[in-house]
């Protein structure tokens, strides 16, 4: 089947045409970089997304610290991943890259901090 989709790898938003009539040999066109090809293939086999959110910080100069999955995780598990953040509270100071939740849902992917938070 030929599918039209928009690549979300970067803000360019390339319009991809993905041919998945042969699952072992998915063909992507319309991309302007190799990431587009990878995205197009992944999107028909097992779509993945980065997940970003916030968790509470204790004793910091701000109330919340932003976090992200270190790599994209399966789209179908986004809400499970977010559940893993519920009630999580970290102590200031926090540095960008600090692991906030390790190995989310056994996916091998960590939630890491994306903001530096100094202790108050």
């Amino acid at each position: 089947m030929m599918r039209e989709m928009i690549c979300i790898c970067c803000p360019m938003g390339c319009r991809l045409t993905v041919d998945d009539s042969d699952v072992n040999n998915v063909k992507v066109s319309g991309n302007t970089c190799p990431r587009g090809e990878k995205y197009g293939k992944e999107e028909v086999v097992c779509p993945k997304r980065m997940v970003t959110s916030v968790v509470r910080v204790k004793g910091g100069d701000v109330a919340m610290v932003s976090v992200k999955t270190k790599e994209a995780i399966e789209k179908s598990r986004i809400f499970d991943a977010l559940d893993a953040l519920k009630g999580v509270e970290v102590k200031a100071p926090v540095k960008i890259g600090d692991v906030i939740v390790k190995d989310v849902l056994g996916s091998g992917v960590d939630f890491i901090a994306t903001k530096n938070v100094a202790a108050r």
Partner: protein
Amino acid sequence: MSVKNLIIIGGGPAGLAAAKSAYDAGERDILILEREDKLGGILNQCIHNGFGLHTFKEELTGPEYAARYIDEVLERKIEYKLGTTVLSIDKNKRVTCANEQDGLLVYEAKAIILACGCRERPRGAINIAGCRAAGIFSAGTAQKLINIDGYMPGKEVVILGSGDIGLIMARRMTFQGAKVKAVVELMPYSSGLNRNIVQCLNDFDIPLMFSHTVVDIKGKGRVSSVVIAAVDDKLNPIKGTEQEIKCDTLLLSVGLLPENELSKMADVALSPITGGAIVDDDMMTEADGIFACGNVLHVHDLVDFVSEESEWAGRRAAAYIKGEKVNGEKVGIDAKDGVRYVVPQFVNKDGDELLKLKMRVGNVYKDVKLCVVCDGEEVYARKCRIVTPGEMETINLNEKQTRALKNCKQAVVCLKAVK
């Protein structure tokens, strides 16, 4: 009264990049004035990813992107003041500002860079009738409440406007357990990035209704529903198409306006189309020694381009302070035939930096070429499968094209159909 070579108003992405590049161009007497208590500006609340692909060749979240530039500024020991609001500037580059620690401060600057960003268009500006209950937020306010303060502004949400902040907030509210019932867009197209429609709406089956608007907001105390209706091609609501959506929250993402209240005090000429200053290719406004860059100049969709433009402005402001800026005869660049505006609006005839033009189109066009025409002669053309008002276009001119533009009497940027 103190004297400063360069005062940068705003410590967000534009101000930080301008400071860094002015420093690297040899300027050491720099002061950044930031009204918030942190450097980084709006990036601090943009916790989603998608920043930095152009600048750093990797995908960062807003706070990470900001941190890179903040580190650059800290490493260079560039002076900055937080919690400091600029109260006025004038064309003699006298700057007054205030904060809690220092009280009222007055500076005389050799150059000023305006890097104060933009603000959201409020409900009042779009004349939505209805109640004045709690529960009506601009999307950016809701973003700050959730991501910075850790509070939820609502549970059942309708979003008016499909600008990027609205789209991002649709997903953000969904992530935090709210139900986003619809995103309603007045125009027949979105002003947001396509990728955001895919990953913020489609991924979560949030309906996007084009050519619709909110015609009534109901509720006592708190919003209890909104009424939406289809609009005709003159954008007027069509009677009989009304439908009521139950919700406790209405988020507005109906456009950004460059914040030029200070510019006006200094008699900086503004473009009625961009809402920002009219500038030359050095990002200098028509007020001598006052530069502008980032969203205060024109609203960008990518922070990477803000950084790039601001680094340019910082470098050129440093040159101005050294007395090296050319400021003689200029060539005007007009936007025509589908192109709404071009920045810069003027180009110095002298000077040898390659030109970079930024523009937006006024509608969605397919299979067109984006052209630069100098005195009737096409010196640059690029084919585009699609151009939309939501995505800023950039034209990088090479040496020959730059020269052609600088040597002509009148340049035009326009769209032409591709046969």
